[in-house]
């Protein structure tokens, strides 16, 4: 059952929104108060992006919008008409990991894994931005992604490895 769709059907507030997610175009009627995160998780069944705090404090919901990392919990979905969104599901698959995903595996960069999709999307966005040069830069520029398990040393190692290899983290 698609909860958001059923509760939304009678609303006069819904806005037609065309949004590309992981390469697939979705033409939707969306309630203005639906966050991009809720759209992804509840309506498009893409549950890789996590709702940790829902207030932009933890970074578990981080996705790439037109290649730029943002907190999807603070984005209203209707404000993304025409946008190209990439979630963790769009970066790679279980059988075909992206370089950043593979680096996280190789460096044991997670424990419970809850923050990991956000960490990886954020790291990919950070490499694309190109402002991080040092390990301290990585720590500073990934500070918007909180890890309750404290896997930070290995997360930094995974990202540093990929940064040194000159790859951007996507395939």
């Amino acid at each position, binding site marked *: 059952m698609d909860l958001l769709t059923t509760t939304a059907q009678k*609303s006069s*507030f819904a*806005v037609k929104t065309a949004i590309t997610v992981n390469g697939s175009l979705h033409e939707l009627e969306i*309630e*203005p*108060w639906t*966050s991009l995160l809720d759209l992804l998780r509840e309506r498009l069944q893409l549950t890789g992006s996590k709702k940790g705090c*829902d*207030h*932009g404090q933890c*970074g578990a919901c*981080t996705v790439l919008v037109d290649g*730029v*990392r*943002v*907190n999807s919990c*603070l*984005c*209203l979905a*209707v*404000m993304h008409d025409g946008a190209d969104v990439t979630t963790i599901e769009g970066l790679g698959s279980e059988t075909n990991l992206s370089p950043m995903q593979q680096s996280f595996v190789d460096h044991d960069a997670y424990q419970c894994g809850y923050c990991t999709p956000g960490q990886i999307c*954020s790291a990919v*966005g*950070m490499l694309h*931005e190109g*402002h991080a040069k040092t390990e301290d830069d990585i*720590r*500073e*520029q*990934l*500070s*918007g*992604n909180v890890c309750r398990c404290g896997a930070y040393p290995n997360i930094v190692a995974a990202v540093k490895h990929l940064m040194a290899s000159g790859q951007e983290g996507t395939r």
Partner: protein
Amino acid sequence: MNNFEYVHADGLESAATFMAGHAEAKFIGGGTNLVDLMKYNVEKPTALVDLNRLSLREVEEMPDGGVRIGALVTNSDVAYHSLISARYPLLSRAILAGASAQLRNKATTGGNLLQRTRCVYFYDTAVPCNKREPGTGCPAKEGVNRSLAILGTSVACIATHPSDMCVALAALGATVQVTGSKGDRSIPFAEFHRLPGDQPEIDTTLQHGEVVTSVDLPAIGFAGHSAYVKVRDRQSYAFALISVAAGLELTDGLITQAGVALGGVAHKPWRNAQLEQELLIGKPANRDTWHIFQQALLAGAHGFGENDFKLKLAPVTVVRALEQAAHEGAQA
């Protein structure tokens, strides 16, 4: 979050017209603060007017030698823009000291000016707050006030303005350009935010329906001597307990131009241009000068218990920022 109508502004005039007919409508830019406040039911707009289709995304040089930053330029794009990092490093550093990369990528210049206090009582709809519900009271004065103001407070409110960017803009002496149904206005930065007085629910001098179109920087950017010192509970991704933006121009060791503003201490970035004229301009750039200046700048500061430590932290942070600005160039 309450239900609300969502519309796009396709021009500044139509946006003003829509706002004139919707007293409870709000503009939205990046939404990183507004959407959060709506989730807490602190902000309850009946309609949101999305400004993102307006062409306010340029950073451009002005004929007077200054730089104009469009209201929709993101905080990240401002901080890393070559014109800003080269000529206004103080602004770049202040922006990058705030929030997280994800938030800076979304938050806009105009929205940063209009973000609201992070006072815990403002956010908690179960308790009184004069800023959120005028006339209900201010529990912060005898309560959780560690992060709150020591200057310019009123009986009604001791909230602080949370921005880092605005502290640098205050020190730089920026101008906020706005437009609305009554035409265009230029607001000096010092007059954009206001002290709480008996109307703490009003943060700025912006009128309902007016849109910030740009923030204009003056020609002098203190590129040679500036510092942003931010003291906070953790090294990254935390609001300032005290922050100081300091910019100086020096000739033969004497101060010829100065801008000093504090964050984390008041309802607005705290600057006193008259004291700068009296106690900094023409004076030698040394610790004696900084001490005399900070004593005057912080005169009248008082704490509310938990935030008493700021009375000791603010003076040393002012001195440290000025010392860094004078001797370490653009290092923060």
